[in-house]
């Protein structure tokens, strides 16, 4: 082997043919850019989370309870407050109304006491608003509330019984992003006004939090370790800043790794581009290879020279990719800023860059390897034999080895990128499966096109279509490349559409779109009247009674938990706070699958009372028909026996319950009511809300359309990042397309010259090209769309368990766009072909 020669030859050859080489490089560039950007970003992100974890929580320790702290917990808090700084925040879901405009809006009222946050800062407008929030009756609000209520800073808002002056808006606050924010904007007030609002005794969605400043890590750990059993028993969540930071870091790690996998597909598509470019390149270099062999180059010398060339170009492409990746990294925080709770420093990560470049070179070399093996089929005789000898096709050990190496490398890279074995393998498997399916679909579609093309079709159409089948065509490569991009984008689109469609209650005329809750028993009639007056539709009001499990079949929850021999009962199901209702009939989203529902047969006197349990929770509790559950309802124990099991369609927008009681058992227990109503028209809904809140200040109303808009917004922001990464794949697909057109340039040139010579007009030749590109674009698009529809259906039906709807029109739009793209790219790359006079081309193409 002659390394020096191989290296020199590789260097010299790579000077020329920039058009094709540039294309080849950019295939790798895109993938590497995607990988470097997201991996380097991840490293900055995780670093930032670690630095910011205290600021994110605003404290060292946070205790959270969905009801007032129980006595033992309150005792712990009080005694700890002797030693450490304490701050509490009470969050209520309530209504805010603006007396000046009459608008109302569901809000999350946060009443703070103490120096919260201990770490980090609350950024407000004006800047000193946070410090001055305890002066007078002042509220700080999310900017969104100002828009909703159509008020400004300085105006007043009514919350419960108190009017607050808006002291400023919150730009950033600890806690940051959560899906909870979709419920309503935050309003911060000082806790001393809380009692006066009169809201405290009603809220069913109230939350209490205690924040501690315990800077000494050891003390903090001891504090938590000693008490965590008490916290658990009293349903108190406790988070330390470190834990919270770790959780967030882990979540972001998973998110960015997922994004990186999306980016990895761009690299693989680029690989397809490389393979097809090298294939063409080697066809052009047949003679050079033959001459080199003739004048004494061994197979290895020549092979090595071209492999080195591929690696060097891969390096150049990867280096360019790394630079672009760093640029993209700088842009990523802007794309993700709404889902990230903090600022991310821009720090390119050297490991990510090196890994990206390394993978780029490796991928470039491996994908080049298969077509480069064709070199072995070029004999020196080609240098003296004019006639074209088709290369001997052989699928031998070397090819199998190259193929295996490619496969193993890609799986290894997937696993590395996924960070875990199984997801990595799953991704690689899914990708491979998709490629194989795409390939099969492409093959089928091509066959079908050929079959179904009518013989009497116009000449231009027949000629254009037959161009897809010219020898050495790259039709399949384009369909794979472009089809994969389309597949990624449209699968995401289909799933997103179905998710949002499920949320979109507006579309269905009968679905409720207003939820009023925390209605007291004596307010039920008033609420029913008000809503019915405005909407003309009867309102469904459902009582809710909260309860906890005291015993199952006579054994206490503590006994059940400590029993290690029996089948595990899931702790969440045992400890949670249940919301029961009572009625004597099934709703449309329920069906009894075992036992008998108590129909129209009040069982007030009966003890134990009959109950109906939802199947999933029954399984989690490990209970069956006939089992007895003792409930603790506000300190009073109620004996029950399971007489039926129900299946509930949770996806339906209705009040659904784990456990249903017959009427007569819970009627006198402490309870609140929920109303689900359908009120058409934004303004009517506004009026209903205003009326309800004016008459019943404790009642909260969720405007489902608003929540839905907020959720759509959040989903949109999350998918934006995914789409952003998928964009790389689309671009890679386009490069494969450009590459394929460049590939057949020479053949096309000869064909069009020949046609011109025998009398084809400019328009006819353009027509032929147009037909070819349209057909190519349509076929590639269809390939991706077909698979995406299937994948979207499978995800929607089996993973999200929703009704599948195919968004036909948008997909058609995408299809046409892809075909249009193919035409534009195709014609732009063929324009000189049309312009050139036949003679010049003939002279040039003659060997």
């Amino acid at each position, binding site marked *: 082997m*002659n390394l*020096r*020669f191989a290296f*020199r*030859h590789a260097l*010299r*050859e790579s*000077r*020329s*043919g920039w058009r094709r080489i540039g294309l080849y490089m950019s295939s790798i560039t895109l993938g590497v850019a995607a990988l470097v950007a997201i991996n380097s970003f991840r490293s900055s992100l995780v670093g930032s989370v670690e630095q910011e974890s205290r600021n994110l929580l605003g404290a060292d320790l946070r205790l959270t309870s969905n009801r007032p702290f129980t006595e033992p917990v309150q005792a712990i808090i009080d005694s700890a407050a002797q030693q450490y700084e304490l701050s509490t925040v009470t969050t209520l879901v309530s209504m805010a109304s603006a007396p000046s405009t009459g608008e109302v809006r569901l809000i999350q009222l946060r009443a703070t006491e103490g120096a919260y946050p201990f770490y980090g800062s609350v950024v407000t407008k004006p800047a000193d608003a946070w410090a001055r929030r305890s002066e007078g009756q002042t509220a700080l609000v999310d900017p969104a509330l100002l828009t909703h209520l159509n008020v400004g800073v300085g105006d007043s808002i009514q919350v419960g019984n108190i009017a607050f002056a808006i002291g400023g808006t919150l730009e950033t606050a600890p806690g940051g992003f959560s899906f909870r924010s979709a419920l309503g904007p935050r309003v911060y007030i000082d806790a001393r006004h809380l009692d006066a609002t009169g809201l405290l005794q009603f809220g069913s969605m109230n939350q209490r939090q205690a924040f501690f400043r315990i800077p000494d890590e050891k003390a903090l750990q001891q504090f938590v370790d000693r008490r965590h059993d008490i916290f658990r028993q009293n349903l108190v969540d406790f988070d330390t800043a470190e834990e919270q930071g770790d959780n967030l870091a882990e979540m972001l790690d998973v998110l960015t790794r997922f994004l990186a996998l999306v980016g990895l597909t761009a690299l693989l598509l680029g690989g397809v581009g490389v393979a097809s470019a090298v294939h063409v390149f080697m066809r052009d270099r047949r*003679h*050079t290879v*033959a*001459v*080199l*062999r*003739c*004048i*004494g*180059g*061994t*197979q*290895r*010398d020549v092979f090595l020279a071209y492999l080195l060339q591929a690696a060097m170009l891969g390096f150049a492409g990867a280096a360019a990719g790394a630079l672009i990746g760093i640029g993209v990294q700088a842009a990523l925080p802007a794309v993700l800023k709404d889902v990230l709770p903090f600022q991310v420093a821009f720090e390119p990560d050297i490991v990510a860059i090196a890994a990206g470049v390394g993978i780029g070179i490796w991928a470039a070399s491996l994908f080049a390897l298969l077509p480069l093996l064709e070199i072995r089929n070029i*004999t*020196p*005789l080609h*240098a*003296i*034999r*004019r006639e074209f000898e088709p290369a001997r096709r052989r699928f031998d050990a070397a090819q199998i080895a190259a193929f295996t190496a490619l496969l193993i490398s890609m799986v290894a890279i997937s696993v590395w990128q996924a960070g875990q074995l199984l997801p990595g393998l799953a991704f690689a498997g899914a990708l491979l499966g998709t490629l194989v399916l795409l390939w099969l679909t492409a093959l089928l579609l091509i066959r079908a096109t050929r079959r179904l093309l009518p013989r009497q079709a116009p000449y231009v159409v027949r000629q254009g279509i037959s161009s897809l089948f010219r020898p050495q065509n790259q039709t399949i490569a384009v369909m794979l490349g472009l089809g994969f991009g389309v597949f990624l984008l449209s699968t995401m689109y289909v799933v997103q559409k179905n998710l949002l469609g499920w949320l979109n209650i507006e579309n269905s005329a009968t679905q409720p779109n207003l939820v009023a809750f925390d209605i007291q028993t004596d307010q039920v009639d008033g609420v029913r009247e008000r809503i019915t007056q405005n909407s003309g539709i009867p309102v469904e009001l459902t009582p809710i009674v909260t309860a906890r499990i005291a015993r199952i079949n006579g054994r206490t929850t503590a006994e059940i938990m400590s029993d290690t021999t029996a089948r595990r009962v899931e702790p969440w199901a045992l400890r949670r706070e249940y919301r029961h209702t009572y009625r004597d009939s099934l709703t449309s989203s329920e069906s009894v699958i075992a036992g008998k529902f108590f129909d129209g047969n009040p069982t007030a006197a009966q003890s134990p009372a009959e109950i109906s349990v939802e199947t999933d929770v029954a399984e989690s509790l490990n209970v069956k028909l006939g089992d007895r559950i003792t409930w603790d309802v506000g300190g009073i124990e109620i004996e029950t026996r399971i007489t039926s099991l129900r299946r509930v369609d949770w996806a339906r927008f209705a009040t659904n319950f784990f456990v249903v009681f017959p009427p007569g058992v819970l009627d006198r227990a402490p309870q609140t009511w929920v109303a689900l109503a359908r009120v058409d028209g934004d303004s009517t809904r506004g009026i209903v809300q205003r009326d309800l809140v004016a008459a019943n200040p404790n009642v909260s109303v969720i405007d489902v359309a608003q929540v839905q808009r907020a959720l759509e917004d959040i989903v949109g922001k999350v998918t934006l990042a995914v789409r952003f990464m998928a964009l790389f794949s689309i671009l890679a697909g386009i490069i494969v397309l450009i590459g394929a057109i460049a590939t057949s340039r020479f053949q096309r040139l000869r064909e069009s010259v020949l046609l011109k010579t025998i009398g084809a007009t400019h328009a006819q030749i353009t027509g032929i090209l147009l037909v070819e590109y349209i057909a190519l674009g349509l076929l590639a698009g269809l390939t991706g769309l077909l698979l995406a529809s299937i994948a979207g259906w499978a995800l929607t039906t089996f993973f999200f368990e929703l009704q599948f709807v195919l968004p036909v029109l948008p997909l058609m739009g995408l299809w046409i766009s892809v075909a249009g793209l193919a035409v534009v790219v195709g014609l732009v790359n063929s324009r000189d072909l049309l312009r050139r006079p036949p003679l010049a081309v003939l002279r040039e193409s003659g*060997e």
Partner: protein
Amino acid sequence: MMIVTRNLEQTYSSGGRPLTVLNSIELSIERESFTAIVGPSGSGKTTLLGLLAGLDRPSAGSVSIDGTDLTALTEDERARFRARNIGFVFQQFQLIPTLTALENVLVPLELAGEHGAHTRARAEELLARVGLADRSHHYPAQLSGGEQQRVALARAFANNPKLLFADEPTGNLDAETGQRIIEMIIGLNQEQHTTLVLVTHDAELAARAHRVVRLAGGRIVADTMNGTASTVAAAAGVLANSVNDATRESAR
């Protein structure tokens, strides 16, 4: 003896039927001689040249050069043998389009593992010898056909070959340019003491050779030593072979 072939035969399969392109070629070529191989299209000239240079393996028989049996060597061993001993000139010039004139001349030297200033000096000297000193940094596309063939000549002589194979070296050139190339080949041949084997259609060119081997239908039909009595002896064989060929042709 420089080249010796024994019962050389080459058969390709064409459409499932064996097609004999060369048949029992017995040929010996002397050191530092100039042999022209002539014959009509399809007579097997190029195939013979390919076999003599070890570009392909014969179906039967052997070729040895300077005592080395080419048919006993592997493909890579033959390539190394060519790198050390053989130079080529082609009808299509076959310069590597992505390399400059100088780099094209350097290729055989580098393939043989040589490098450094003296290698470069040798390449420049050869380019100067073919009158292209001032065009050494041009690419093939920037050179005329005659110039390209001169670069090819310089390349062919770069590694001091003992043997030079030329395949229709003037076939793509106009008469005047072709003439100059021939003068150069012959001149260089004498200077460098190489053995020259040339395939051509051109009777005028063949007439300049010491010896003319005429092929027809895959057999040697004439072997003429220019200006010697062996012509007569060869002529008798030609007649016999021609008759054979004719009967075989008509039998197909």
